[in-house]
């Protein structure tokens, strides 16, 4: 890419020290080429917004503005978003120097971006909180400048909040939960939902009783025998979120569905892979243990 280099003319006159200082400043500023980052997934959107300066953000994922999926729907309002299903050109339009993708991005796309001289960071681990911290650190390292410091600050803040939550929930009786879905799969072990439950004083019955790993189809009839205390749903209205399950077997026959024993979380929480899941812990903990968490 074309870069503008500052040319420093040295003149054989007085005050060489001052000239040298200016030269060093200019050289220092010019040597660091401007970083422009395009983020392809919601998780990296959230992390990027935490550590990058606004001028470093070139574009965000197609879902960035959608409150159903993005924790940063409001904060990302001013930034452009990628087109769904675009090709390399639709990313290169934003003239990025760095692109953040997930391991499930098409290999052809990644290859074309690299051919065009763009640095591509691929994130393949995002299940646990530690993975989320790593994401922040990796992105911050790539950005350089003040970013690593911002990342450390965010991580430290998260750790403090998580510890605080642990203290508040000490000794609490875990609530048995399940998060149903209309597309035939529920999250079990090793998912972000599991992580959410662990940190919010809940037991994910899909993992503990159902021994489901990853996102898996629930065992239809057995589901009815699980002692679900509360359902965890995402959405803005309890009635609207519960409605589909009242009509969908096997959920329709579950006591918790019929009695409407459910907690409602902001919809993006259930799919959150970034450090913002800590907000999610608080949402869930507050909903399940109202007395304990303010």
């Amino acid at each position, binding site marked *: 890419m074309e870069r503008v280099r500052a040319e420093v003319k040295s003149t054989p006159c007085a005050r060489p020290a001052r000239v040298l200082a200016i030269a060093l400043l200019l050289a220092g500023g010019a040597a660091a080429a401007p970083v422009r980052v395009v983020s392809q997934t919601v998780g990296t959107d959230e992390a990027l917004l935490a550590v990058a300066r606004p001028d470093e953000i070139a574009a965000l994922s197609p879902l960035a503005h959608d409150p159903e999926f993005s924790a940063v729907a409001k904060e990302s309002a001013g930034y452009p978003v990628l087109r769904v299903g675009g090709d390399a*050109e639709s990313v290169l339009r934003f003239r990025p120097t760095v692109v953040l993708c997930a391991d499930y991005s098409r290999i052809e796309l990644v290859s074309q971006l690299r051919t065009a001289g763009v640095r591509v960071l691929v994130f393949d681990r995002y299940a646990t909180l530690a993975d989320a911290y790593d994401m922040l650190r990796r992105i911050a390292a790539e950005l350089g400048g003040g970013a690593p410091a911002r990342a450390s600050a965010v991580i430290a803040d998260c750790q403090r909040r998580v510890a605080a939550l642990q203290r508040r929930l000490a000794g609490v009786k875990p609530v048995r939960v399940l998060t149903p879905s209309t597309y035939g799969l529920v999250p079990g072990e090793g998912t972000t939902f599991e992580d959410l439950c662990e940190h919010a004083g809940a037991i994910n019955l899909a993992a503990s009783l159902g021994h489901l790993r990853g*996102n898996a189809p629930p065992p239809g009839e057995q589901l009815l025998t699980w002692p679900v205390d509360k359902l965890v749903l995402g959405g803005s209205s309890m009635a609207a979120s519960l409605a589909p399950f009242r009509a969908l077997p096997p959920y329709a026959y579950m006591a918790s569905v019929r009695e409407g024993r459910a907690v409602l979380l902001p919809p993006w929480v259930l799919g959150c892979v970034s450090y913002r899941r800590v907000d999610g812990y608080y949402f869930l903990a507050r909903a399940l243990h109202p007395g304990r968490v303010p």
Partner: protein
Amino acid sequence: MSSGSKDRADGLLWGAGALLVLLMAASLCLGDLRLPPSQVWAGLLRRDSWFATVVWEIRLPRTVVAVLVGAALSASGLVMQAFFRNSLASPGLLGVSSGGAAGAVLAIAFGWASLSLWSLPLAAAAGAAAATLAVVAFARRGATTDRLILAGLALNALLGAVTGYFLCRHTDVFDRNAQMVFWLMGGLEDRTWTHVLIALPIVLAAAWLWPLGRPMDLLSLGQAEAQSLGVDVRRLRRQLLLLSTVLTAAATAVSGPVGFVGLIVPHILRLLAGPAHRRLLPLSLVGGAAFVLACDLASRLIGGLPLGIVTALIGGPYFLWLLRRER
């Protein structure tokens, strides 16, 4: 062939060639980066490294792959139609595209696809080849037309089941699933020079096919008749089957299954230029290339509609029109 229709066929070939060149130029000028023609030109001549990257690494490979895929599918369709003596035969009749689909879906499901740029196309090609071998094996003992068609039907069904299974089974990894669906619709996004390399057998197969036009004429009017007129029918049929497989497999490997090209293009060209395969072969190659390139351009202009859907949207109405004509 009377000289009048010979001239017309030649004129058609020149016309198709000119159209192809125009479409290739348009393809180089179109893209999300909105480069004006002057910048595209600068890139083509490598005067500017950024424009050169866009033109040479992103747009040109895509254009070349479109040309190769279009030529391959159309020629393959023509071969199938002569082979089966039926103008409604298509390249996928014997399960080649289904095999390619199954291979690709397997590669995505098991994660091989993300290992290297070669994995997915090679898996698709392997699937396609395996499918054809299976068809020929099923139809052993005199591989007559009927037996081949039945075997093809059986294999299409089985391979469809395999593909469907993996689509269902792996819905938990949503994005892998999305990748599978995306691939199954056919598409030319982000084709690289690696894909062009993988598609090179198309050129070899087309060159081999070129002189077979005359014997194909005879074969298309009857196997036994052709044999008695001096055509080595067994050898010719083996060659045609092999060439059609290579063409379809290579095309499917680099672009996913794209339907209707092998059906529509030879059909239209036959209506315009007559059934002589000596004329139809080069016409199919050029015409098919132009057709797929035009569909790819349309897909880009409509905002990323998958190529397979664009060809289907053209295919459906075409056959409805044919129906009305027949009446």
